[in-house]
Every structure is written in C-alpha cells, then in structure tokens.
C-alpha cells in the first residue's frame, strides 16, 4: 500500500499553484464586485432616493443607556462610494498582490452587503418598508449562522477523524424532531437538548458502525441516512405529531441577557442577548478548536484522519477514535437540530430545507478548521437570511442568485479559484487492519 502511494506521488507531483496568480484572481473578483455595487445598487436607484437604517431592535425595551439614532443617507451616493472603495481595494489587490488578499475580498463582501441593504430599503423604492432595522438583520442572520456553526463543527470533528459526514442534515432533522417533542412534553429546553444530543449521537453511531466497522462507502451511507431521517420524520409527523398536537407546541426558549454587555448598541442585542444555544455554540467553537489543535485527544483524532496506519503503529486504536469522534460530531449536529427548532418553533417535515448541506459547504469553505467553519457559517448565515428577508419584503431582485451563493463559493474554493483547501488525507477512506 505504502509503496504504491509513493509511486503515485512520483508519477504525478502535487500540483503547485502560484499563490500570486490566485491573488490576481481575487483582486479581479473584488473589482467586479465593486463595479456591480456601483452599477446595480448605486446607479440602480433614483437620484433623490434615500435609505434609512434603524439600530434599536424592535422587540427589545432593554433600556439601553444610549441609543443610536436612525441613519438616513442618500442611496445613490453612498452606494457609489461603497462600490468605489471596493473597486479601490480590488485594484490594490490586483497590483500589489498582498498576502491578505482574501481579507480585502471579505471587506468588499461586507460593503456589498451594506450596499445591498441600502438599495433594498430605498425610498422611493419598490419595497413597502421605508427603513431597515440593521440590528434585526444581524440577529436574524446570526440565528441561522448559529445552526450552521453546530453543523459545520460536527463536520469538522467527523472529517478530521477521517469519516465523511454528509449526514449532518439527517442529524439536524433527528435533533429537531426530538427537540420539538421533548420540549413540548417537558417544557424544558435543557432536556430537549439532551435528547437531541442523544439522537444525533445515535445517527452518528449508525454512520460510524457502517463506515468504520462494515467499511461501507461513507458518501452513500451519508446520503441514505439523510433520506432515512427525513422520511422517518415525515412518517412520524403524520402518524404521531398530527394526531397529538400537544407533542409539537413550538415553544421557544427565552433569551438570556448578559448584564451590562447586552446594553451596548448593536453588539449588545446581537451577541449578548441570545438563547443559551448561542452561548453553547460559542463555547463549543472554543472547546473544539482548543481540543483539536492543543490536546493529546485532538492530535490522535487528526492523526487518525491523516494517516491511520501511522497512528495505529504508535498504539492508537483507529476504530475507537473514529467511533467516538463521529458520535461526538453527531451529538453536536443533533444539538444543532434542537437549536434550529428553538429558533423555528414547530417542527414540520422538510423544515431544515438543506441547511445541513450548507453546513457541509461551510465546513469545506472553512478549510476543515473550526475557526474557518465559523467565519463561513456567518457568511452563509447572512446570505441565507437575506434571501428570506428580501423575499418577504418583496424586493424585486432574483434572490435565486443569492441562494446559490454558498454553493458557488464552496465550488470556487474546492476548485482552487479563491483560496485553496486540503481535506484530511484519509478523509472518507475506511481503515482496514492488515
């Protein structure tokens, strides 16, 4: 096996891509982004149109010591300015090809997002609402991003140990269904979270059983597990939830405001007045990134995913590490399912609508790292929320293109067009002891 691998490497040396050329591409993309902002959002709004952002969340009477007044701006000129800044960033990236090219692209993305919001709520404009609550947009985006964080962390855990987890969506569904039922009966989201964790771990166990022990193909198993969970949930919905509506009342957990910090404008309501699921997600990100990269356990997990044979030769039980890590990953995703249903309320079949696959994309876009997964989750969460929000406000733009966004950027990353990713070397390869 080893000798074979070596010959392959010799026969086809790993492709060396000049990072400099890639930075050019990123620069060009940033310029295109800026031009698009100037043309579509700047010149695309009437000369006298203005937009208003408000910053106090609608439902919070938090009694903040100071509030931000609404911001009213001239849409066309602001968007032209934002676009110009983006173009300038792109030109700078194109010419100087700096190491931080992606960061500049990211800044351009944020400016794009603000310009889009300004354009969407312009007055006179097509949208019936004349102002847009910036803080609410962030809160809504973060509630989706939180679920994606759970899912992508689950993916990071499983795939670092060498098991491809396409079944994140299935674990979401399982966690969401179990969470909705348990919470409806016990009225406790802590118990719901516990059961959701167990259900997610159960799906993870099934994945590990078939993938690690029975050496089945992990991609097929993952796909089928999603189908299985979605049909089970749909079946139970008709057979159990429909006749007993008290099993699906759709409670939502109350927010836990952190004293003082939650009073800060914008940041406070967004980050420090959230449900416990959000704080747990933040905690998990810290724990998992520390665990994976700073502890002995993490080293074992990563070694099993990169080179199981070497790991075994130093006495690591590959199968046991993979089992436990995949079950842990399943548990995290199951908790994500509960977090999702806590945001959504009642369970319906198909309610997760492919969020698990977006989480998978976020994990890949985040380069199989917890920190990257978080950034990608936030990015994808914002875009997913905006699709909903803009559709609800009847903004006449084809939101389909925004729906595609997470998938397209993930494809671009996998293809090496922007950034470059490398999965764990033995991701998805079952390990068979000789």
């Amino acid at each position: 096996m080893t000798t074979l691998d070596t010959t392959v490497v010799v026969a086809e040396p790993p492709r060396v891509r000049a990072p400099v050329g890639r930075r050019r591409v990123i620069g060009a993309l940033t310029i295109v982004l800026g031009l698009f902002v100037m043309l579509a959002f700047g010149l695309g709004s009437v000369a006298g149109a203005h937009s208003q952002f408000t910053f106090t969340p609608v439902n919070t009477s938090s009694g903040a010591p100071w509030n931000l007044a609404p911001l009213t701006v001239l849409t066309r000129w602001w968007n032209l300015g934002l676009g110009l800044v983006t173009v300038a960033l792109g030109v700078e990236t194109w010419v100087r090809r700096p190491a931080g090219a992606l960061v500049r692209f990211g800044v351009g993305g944020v400016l794009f997002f603000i310009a889009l919001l300004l354009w969407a709520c312009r007055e006179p404009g097509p949208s019936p609402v004349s102002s847009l609550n910036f803080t609410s947009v962030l809160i809504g985006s973060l509630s989706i991003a939180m679920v994606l964080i759970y899912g992508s962390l689950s993916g990071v855990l499983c795939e670092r140990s060498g098991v491809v987890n396409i079944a994140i969506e299935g674990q979401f569904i399982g966690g969401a269904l179990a969470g909705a039922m348990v919470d409806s009966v016990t009225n406790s989201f802590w118990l719901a979270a516990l059961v959701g964790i167990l259900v997610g771990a159960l799906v993870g166990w099934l994945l590990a059983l078939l993938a690690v022990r029975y050496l089945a193909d992990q991609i097929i198993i993952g796909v089928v597990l999603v189908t299985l969970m979605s049909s089970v949930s749909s079946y139970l919905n008709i057979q159990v939830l429909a006749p007993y509506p008290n099993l699906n009342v759709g409670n939502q957990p109350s927010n836990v405001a952190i004293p003082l910090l939650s009073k800060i404008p914008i940041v406070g309501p967004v980050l420090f007045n959230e449900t416990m699921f959000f704080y747990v997600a933040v905690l998990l990100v810290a724990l998992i990134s520390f665990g994976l990269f700073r502890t002995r356990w993490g080293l074992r997990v990563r070694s099993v995913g990169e080179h199981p044979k070497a790991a075994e030769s130093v006495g690591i039980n590959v199968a046991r590490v993979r089992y436990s890590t995949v079950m842990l990953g399943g548990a995290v995703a199951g908790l994500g399912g509960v977090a999702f249903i806590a945001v959504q309320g009642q369970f319906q079949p198909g309610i997760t609508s492919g969020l698990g696959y977006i989480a998978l994309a976020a994990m890949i876009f985040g380069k199989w790292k917890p920190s990257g997964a978080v950034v990608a989750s936030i990015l994808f969460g914002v875009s997913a929320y905006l699709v909903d929000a803009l559709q609800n406000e009847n903004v006449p733009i084809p939101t389909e293109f925004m729906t595609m966004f997470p998938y397209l950027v993930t494809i671009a990353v996998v293809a090496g067009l922007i950034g470059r990713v490398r999965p764990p070397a033995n991701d998805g390869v079952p390990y068979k002891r000789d």
Partner: protein
Amino acid sequence: MSERPSPSNAPALGDAPEARARLVPRWWARYSSTSPITLTVLALVLGVVIGAFIIMLTSAPVLNSWRHSFHHFGSFAGTLKLTFDTVAAAYRAMVTGSILDPTLFFHSLSTGNGWDQTLTPISETLTYATPLVIASIGVGIAFQTGIFNIGANGQAILGAIAGTAVASMIHLPMFLHLPFTLVAGIIGGAVCGMVPGVLKAYTGAHEVIVTLMFNYVVNAILIYALTSTALQLPGQSNDISRNFDSTATLNPLFGTKSGLRVSYGIFVAAAVVVFAVWFLKRSSLGFDFRITGANPNAARASGINPKTIVLAVFLVSGGLSGLAGIVQAASTTHYIDGGFLVGSAGIGFTAITIALLGRLQPIGIVWGSLLFAALGVGGRAMQAATGIPLDLATIIQSVVVLFVASPVLITEIFRLRSGAESFQLANKGWGS
C-alpha cells in the same frame, strides 16, 4: 479493535462446526452462499421487517391493544391478530397497489371489463420506473469509472429545463420535435455534468463536493427559469412552465382514453439499457471507462488520458440524467414547476441507491428501479387504503440500501458463509 473481528478474520465455518450447527440449521448453512441476489433479497427482507416494526410501534390501535393485554393479562391472541392484520393490510395494499390486485384481475378475466383499473398499478410502477432506469444507468456508468456523480438530480432538472424550452417554445412536426426535445434534455444534462467534469479534470476539484453543491445551484436556476424567463407560463406569477406542444410529448402507450399512464418513455428507457449494455461491454470508450474504474494507475500507464475519461464520463452520465429529467416531464406532467424533482420528489439520490442495488449493471439496475418504483407506488396505495404514511416506502428503501451498501453486515446478521468480497463498492472519500 474494540469490535468483534470481521467475518474475514473470523474463524472459518469448519473451526467450530458444533457451535454453528446449534445456531443455524444445516440446510441454511448449505444454502447460504452470498451471491449478490441473496444479499439483496435478504436486505429487502430486513427492510420489510423493520418497516413492520415501525408500523406496529406507531399504530395507535395496536399499541392500545397491547397495553390492554398487559394490564388485564389476557386476549393476547386477539392482540397478536390485530398486530398481524394491521401490518398485513399495509403490505397487502402496497403489493396490490403496485403490481396487481388479484380480485380485480379475476373480475377482469371473467367479465372482460375493467382492464384499465386492473392494469393501473403495474402501469404506474412502469411510469415511475422509466426515468429511474435512465438516471440510475447514468450514475452507474460513472460509478463503474470510479467517479461519484452525486449531481444526477441537478443534471436531470437542467435537462428538463432545456427540454421544456424546446418542447414548449419551438413548434415542429412530431417526428422532429420529440427527438429534438429529448436531445435538448441530453444536452442540458451534459452541460450541467460538464461543470464538475471540467473542474475535476483541470483543477482537481473533488467531484462529490462539486456535484453535491451543484444540485442546489440548479434548484435555484430552476426557480429563476420558471419565474424570470420566457419559459414561465404567460400570465402566471407562479413558478410554472409553459405546456409542452402535443408534438413533443411521450404519449401513453394505450392512448389517452385508457387512463393508463405508461408511455412510450419505456422504449426510451429500453433503448438506454441496450445502449448501456453495448457501451460497457463492447465499445472501446466503455472499456476505457471500466479500466479506469478498476485501476486508474494501470489505465494511465496504458495510455488512457484521465482528463478525457473524466470529461467523457460526465458527458455520458450527465446526458443520461438529463434524458431522465426530460422523459419524466414529457411522459407525465407535460410541464415543469418549481417542485419538479426537488426535495423528496428528487430522483438523483434514488438513482444512486438504485445503481448500488443493481450492482452498477444495466440489467440489475432495471430490476432495482422496478423494485423502488413499486415501493413508491405501493406506498401511495397503502396510504390511501390504510392511512399509514407513504414515507414508510422511503424508509424501507433507505434501510434496504443501507444493508446493500454494507454486505458484511448482512452476512453477520444471517450468519452467511463469508462472502463479503462478493460486492463492495470502491470506497471514495474526498481526502484521497
């Protein structure tokens, strides 16, 4: 390892004959060689058994009866009968609803009337199986080359979009229009397949990730095409396409009056099967495909260009998926809407599982498609007759495939003689 040793490491049957003899009857031990057909049948048996347990555990009358029996220490016979009847009624409805209802059959046979009603179940099964056969063969050909095409659904949708555009916006006589429509479907699917193909060949992007992501991109393209382009039915604000011209539809075999939906599409599917058998067994490109799938290094060493193969695989596989999409639209609805092949109506993941069930071979895939179509149609009939949700059929399908994908598990459950190597799909992660 913390687990039990896998059967290949386990002591051979002869090591402990007396222990084995107590566990399994001798005739079974003799019979149980692990041929692929045995494994599939056993997987189906397990799926049906698990389905039966799900029916029992979620049926209120059955559960109440059990509770009553336990509380009053009696009437277990009645409870067992109720349980059995509930499960049997569900499965009977499934079979009669997807294949043949004997009562109706004998009625038709004796009176000569009502043949339409008698033949409806089998006609529906064939109608559902038609696109499944085509798409699964496309997926199967890719799998044989060692390429995982998870994007069959997206390719089918794009094929259907292209085909619908030709079928509804161009007007031609039938002998031109129908072929053009089908070819447009093939081209649409092939174009969609070329995206992951080109990316894999020239940048090394992993096809599983790209095809998986592209399914969702295509879903969005579908909505866009049906709401913001000329394809939308004029005067509509919903996401629905124009109707096919009558010259571009695959008409029912027995005429529109009979009510049987089975259409000329089955001849398209049959042609695809013949093509696939010829292609894989006789053509030189098919040979290159199989060599690449069996051993990529040997293929490269013998002068086969891997890039060409990747592109060709995605052309063929995507084209067949696209054909499946347009056949689906042209033989049933004659238009497409925003829910076309989306979500649970999708055929892409089903095609993957059927390809696996059929061992990637065209003939096996035909049987697998018929089985899955029968389960789907039967599930509908079961829901109508007994109220048990048709999702039970999908659950059974998933369980069957989980078992088929891990043959070692079946050999352990049924204590078959070791034969795990009879079929195991080449594992394909995205790390390698």
